[in-house]
């Protein structure tokens, strides 16, 4: 991919902003290496998903309106999260269904918003971003990315494009990890039981790195890996793609 005049607005998500800024830095670097000019609208905060998932739809709408203003215009928006991406792409048009004007803006934003891996593979047409790292990688397909946005292959293709990386799929690759937002706290026993299966599957596949496209799932999974003293490293896909080891 040669340098083009592509320019995107980055929606970094509140979680990455506040907890995992290194993911955001990796996203910026990977995109820039593909010749994409990155812009960060500084008025952004959250997409409103926590409120929406909790049933506080009116609160979510208020935040969504601000989001629509922050990302006004015709520039593509890239977001390193399947679930925040689903909020914008799938649920914004739904929650404004009875406000035609806002719904039209939401639909327009939806059409130009892309999850990070989706943007690289489906828009830029890149599967090899020039990354290299010697590691065995398992992939956790985050639910909203897979079943709301229907982005299935791009993350796998990008992992396989990393020089030196061996993609070792786990049996439960597409199973839910048990995070589910407030679910993970309100029903923490169920959340734990579901995660248990995932971790077992992860251990069985022999990977030393777990990659996903959602920092929320990763916070949940890595929180348990850390508590157990597991050597497996959980990271965002962007962080894997930002590696340029000489192998």
């Amino acid at each position, binding site marked *: 991919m040669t340098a083009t005049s592509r320019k995107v607005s980055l929606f*970094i998500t*509140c979680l*990455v*902003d*506040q*907890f*995992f*800024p290194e993911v*955001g*830095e990796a996203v*910026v670097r990977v995109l*820039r290496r593909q010749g994409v000019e990155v812009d*960060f609208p*500084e*008025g952004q*905060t*959250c997409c*409103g998903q*926590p*409120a929406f*998932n*909790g*049933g*506080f*739809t009116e*609160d979510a709408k*208020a*935040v969504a309106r*601000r989001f629509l203003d922050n990302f006004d215009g015709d520039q593509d928006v890239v977001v390193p999260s399947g679930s925040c991406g689903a909020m914008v792409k799938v*649920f914004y048009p*739904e929650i404004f269904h009875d406000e035609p004007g806002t719904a039209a803006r939401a639909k327009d934003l939806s059409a130009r918003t892309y999850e990070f891996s989706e943007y690289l593979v489906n828009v830029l047409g890149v599967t090899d971003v020039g990354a290299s790292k010697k590691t065995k990688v398992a992939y956790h397909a985050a*639910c*909203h990315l897979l*079943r*709301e946005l229907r982005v299935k292959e791009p993350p796998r293709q990008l992992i396989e494009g990393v020089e030196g990386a061996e993609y070792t799929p786990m049996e439960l690759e597409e*199973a*839910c990890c*048990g*995070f*589910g*937002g*407030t*679910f*993970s*706290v*309100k*029903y*923490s*026993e*169920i*959340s*734990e*039981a*579901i*995660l248990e299966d995932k971790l077992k599957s992860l251990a069985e596949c022999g990977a030393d790195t777990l990659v996903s496209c959602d920092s929320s799932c990763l*916070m949940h999974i890595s*929180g*348990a890996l*850390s*508590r157990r003293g597991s050597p497996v490293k959980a990271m965002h896909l962007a962080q894997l793609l930002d590696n340029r080891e000489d192998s």
Partner: protein
Amino acid sequence: MDVKTKDFVSGSKAAILDPQIQEALAKLRNGLGRGPRLASEELTPPVWQDMRQRASDIKTHTIANLDYYLEKLSDNVEKAGGHVHFARDAKEASDIVLDIARKRDVELVIKGKSMVSEELEINDHLESIGIESVETDLGEYILQLMNEPPFHIIAPAIHKSRRQVSEIFTEKLKTLPSDEVEQLCETARETLREKFLNADMGITGVNFAVAETGTIALVTNEGNGRMCTSLPKVHIALMGMEKILPRLEDLALFLGVLPRSATGQRISSYVTCVTGPRRSTDEDGPEEFHLVIVDNGRSKILADEQMREALNCIRCGACLNACPIYGKVGGHAYGWVYSGPIGAIVTPMLTGTVEAKHLPFASTLCGACKDACPVKIDIPHMLLRLRQEITQGGTLAKNGKAPWYEAALMKGWRQSVRGSRVFSLANRLGRLALLPLSRNGKVRRLPPPLSGWTRFRDFPLPSAKPFRERWRKGLKDE
């Protein structure tokens, strides 16, 4: 059936700690969970997807014109010599059944598997007027002896072990203990055969009712359904009012879709079609045929355009098998007749109770259910709609309200996301609050109501230098 959904949390914890239930659920994942996948994968993907789409379209069309098709069905059942009764709620429905039983001096009822009959608690009502009512589906029979509700829509006793079955047979049927499945089946067969031969009335459910012919279709694997419809002098079929298909031709499609999704079979062992009572030329069949069409909250679902899709359900159980939550807590935690993802939708709506408010929230919204559903019901989106009703006090879930701490957290969140500056400040404060609780950037114990997180997971400390700061101070111009 009493709604015990308010005990969801304690029920789910108990199930997670029960090794036998966990073993059964793990088996379910690899058994019933896998079979249907294989059965649909054996078809080329476009064929299966096309079947799902057609099935979904037919159901959506039928539900949108339900009044028309109900009338047509009712006319055609009567033309075939049957009687049709409409029941507004469970009480009315069971009164209708009791009335017929009294008129015909019924003493013994044999029952086929029917989820609607669980809504009615018809066995209890029959027994209260001295009529014996025996479940004849093997799983249901076992549960009746054990006095338990079904654990799964299509495999009601899947959580029971061979040993438990042997024990209950020994206790209630006075047979010798046995470890052999064949022996246990033989015991049930012998006991039930006598009931079949002596029963005065058969009660069954309805998998599909064909409007254009007035035919009801039953899909079973044990053949017991056919005995219930053909041996006793009276047959009562109970159906939820959504179980209609317009044409016989549609039935052909659904007879392929249902078993594939339910058990992974191409077609079930028995398909029984009943059109009215015995005709003069028939060699067997009941003298009287009654169809009881039950509303029991369904018209409330029908009235809500966004939720109407829930009536497309053909009760195949595929969403249960695909659901990570059901896969850990099983059926009983859901506290009413229907469990799993579809239960989480219909229980709050059919029972209209505040007690059911846990169910829509006890989901990760992972979407595995909608992908498994043969009629493509978008369950996650409906759960979100119910959450909204409950939290904001809508009409679908009476008197629901978010718990105080959630409302408080939400208030804080609402303030913090108002603008980027307040947002940064709020998070800075959050970091300061968490700092004393952390070691090496990780928090090992959070106070309630967040303590559930740190029970088995570390929580990360917010970054000292958030992304927006890094952007402003360098990254922007790198």
